[in-house]
């Protein structure tokens, strides 16, 4: 039926609530979650880390990309229960003491941001790429970001930004 999000389950009793522990951007949290809650729900609704965006809720757009134990994941596809005990980094956890991560800086300088809704996910996915491949080719950047949709920029300046961040040593968080 139109208007009904398929991932929302009904009739979930409070008694099914579970307690999980998450380390998010360095802070430890003990949280009560329902079985159908996703990591994205927990980040946005409980922890109010709204920098991570929901674009589709189905793992098709990448706007909700965060790092879980160092790897980029679509947080809308990870159940909160599955994330128990893991370490999460969101877009809010990148800049240290007001200093942008090199990938963030490159996005700003290269004009890779328009509406900005895909930006947090795009940045997290790009950092994930550079951790694996510090010097990716243009084609490797394009392939790595296929799961992150953007409707504004046409991707060109995003690809340039990732390339720029790589050549300035963006694989490392230069703190």
């Amino acid at each position, binding site marked *: 039926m139109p208007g009904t999000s398929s991932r929302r389950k009904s009739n979930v009793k409070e008694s099914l609530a579970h307690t999980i522990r998450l380390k998010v951007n360095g802070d430890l949290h003990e949280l009560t979650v329902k079985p159908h809650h996703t990591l994205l729900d927990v980040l946005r609704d409980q922890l109010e880390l709204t920098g991570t*965006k929901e674009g589709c809720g189905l793992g098709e757009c990448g706007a909700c990309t965060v790092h879980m134990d160092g790897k980029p994941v679509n947080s809308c596809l990870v159940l909160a229960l599955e994330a128990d005990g893991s370490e999460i980094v969101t877009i809010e956890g990148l800049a240290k003491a007001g200093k942008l991560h090199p990938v963030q800086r490159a996005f700003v300088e290269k004009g890779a941001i328009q509406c900005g809704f895909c930006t947090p996910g795009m940045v997290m996915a790009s950092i994930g790429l550079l951790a694996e491949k510090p010097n990716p080719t243009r084609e490797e950047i394009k392939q790595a970001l296929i799961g992150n949709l953007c409707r504004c920029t046409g991707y060109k300046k995003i690809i340039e930004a990732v390339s720029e961040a790589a050549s300035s040593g963006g694989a490392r968080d230069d703190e």
Partner: protein
Amino acid sequence: MMNKDFAVIGKNVPRIDSIPKVTGEARYTCDLKLPGMLWGAILRSPHPHAKILRVNLERAKGLTGVRAVITAEDVPQNRFSFIQALADKNIFCREEARYIGDEIAAVAAVDRDTAEEALQLIEVEYEPLPAVFDPEAAMAPDAPRVHDRENNIVYEFHKSFGEVDKAFELCDVVCEDRYLTHQLAHCCMETSNCIAQVDSSGGLTLYVNTQAPHTQRQELARILGLPIGKIRVVNSNMGGGFGSKLVMDMKGPIAACLSMRTNKPVKIINSRQEEFSTAKTRYPYIMDIKVGATKEGRILSRQARVIVDNGAYNDKGPSTLSFASMMFNVLYDVPNTQFDACLVYTNKQFGTAFRGFGNPQIAFATECQLDDLAKRLKMDPIELRMKNLNKPNSMTTHGARITSCGMQECMEVSAKAIGWSEKRREPKKFRGIGMANMVHSGAGSRYYGFNSNDAFVKIADDGTVTLITSALDMGQGAQTTMAQIVAEELGVKMESLKVLTNDTDLTPYDLGSYGSRATFICGNAAKLAARDARKELVFVAGEMLEANPEDLVVKNGVVHVAGSPGKSIPVAEIVQYSVSKKGSSISGRGHFVDTLASGADITAGYLTHIPTFAFATQMAEVEVDPETGKVKVLKIVAAHDTGTAINPVSAEGQIEGGVVQGFGYALMEKLSVKDGRVENISFLDYKIPNSGDIPDIETILVETEDPDGPFGAKGVGEPGLVPTAPAIVNAIYDAIGVRFKELPVTPEQVLKALRDRPR
């Protein structure tokens, strides 16, 4: 040429919103949470056309956590459309549902899960009615009626200049074709959403991702029957617009009614599936077009008969038609043109504005047909277009005043960049190049009888300059553009600029960000406000420096006497002096009035409805895979006449984003609608271009200088996608000799055409 020695204009300063956006601090409406907030959800019709026999809300009302359940009985009965004379939609369906997705009822509950569970407990008994989905079928005398009216043709538009039929008789070559486009989804990354909050004095605040807060406020007032002054519309950062958020949709009034019922703030957000399956779309056009030229290549006559699928309700259909007709007539210097169109109801999702506003549809048809004409004239497509150019400082036969115009230069530079003459001469197998031009508004339209704007500048005692503007930023960069204009005109650094916008209680009346108008209209107002503030500033500085204010220079936030930079005072000190010694702070008002707009008549068509025009040429190089039918776009060259580019990187970004949307329009995107039901309601099934799909894009800014735009600028928001699809389709023709007349061109169609083509 104007003095291009600017301090801030033309510089690639980073956007003022880019750091909040890259750190996740930027708040969008969907991120907002208010104390006591409830979640709303909407029950929508599962039938394309049905009578509503009975609605039972009792079970839903009985669910724990539900705070309100409402239907048509509980809300104002006013009907609404963007053009009130064509009003046809209630907040909720009263007796009939007219498309799959039509609003039947809504709930407010303590959380989203409960709201959606409650929807499932609402019982509705429907009697399905005959429905019609094809606009031509809907025009038949015995077609099912979508609304209770004589027929399904809701609006007609006829505009004719010169004598087309006589002129066709003088032509040596005439082409006649039918071109088709389909419904498309805007696919903003942030879905449509809002929070409504009533207060005890009967006021309503709507937090909403809208492109046009002031007109949205008028629309809410109309449908809710509230005085405009009781309503406040507040925007946040916006996850894209592209026209989808120009006219109110029913979420706003529904959230407002739920808030009135519960005295709590109520939030409603579309799921992505809901957005695909029920939101407004790009209007599909059926275009029968005809063009004729002499054997020398002079185009004498052009005619279009257009049938537009309106969907179930009225929105921007008449305006997009009028705009499409203007662009159809004004593109190239054609002395005789005729445009006849009708807008037809069907039982489908209805259309609205979508980047380009009818022009991407008509440009696809016109520019493809022009290539066929060139072929029959045995003429290079560029040569034919050069013979019929729009020219600067000219008046078209339709009375449109063209001021700045870079059409010729756009063609020349893009032909050079793509290697047109070499590549056309030596065609490789299954590889081709093609081109298309476009004309578009560079400054909105006078269509609505108003195209003006005010702005305010205040300078704080530390030298911080705050601009209050209505230039709404949906992601295109309007705030930064406005800040650059003010910084340049006032003579201060970008770092001292702040921009306040997005709130109808704060900003002056404005039509919103659409039609590529913000840079030109709001930019002119911002520039005048800065000039006004500068006048006060140098007056006070003159007293401090014991100099004639007219001899003073303001640069980088410092005022000095021209020729003696040694004797200078920072802006902050001037403000402090003014406040303490003169009892006056420093500010400015910009009042940009487009006087020609007040005479525009919404029903009479157009003559001088466009303040200035933007032009562009795009060229595409493609490779067709004969095994799979897949078209690979190797390169797009996009040369755009932007006027002065206030921020070149930002202007390029607008063009590149437009090109990629145009690429999707040409080859990938279409809402697949069967019996009124959208079948592809996710990004897996409705493909938009991803980073792996895109062609190489070379953007060239052709900076003509507009005589009326701020610092010579004109709008750049929409043109990017207008010529892309015809350029690609023309390149496919060059590659395989097959003319596609329907979008998108899919691999299946290419394979079929390759099989069927004569050998």
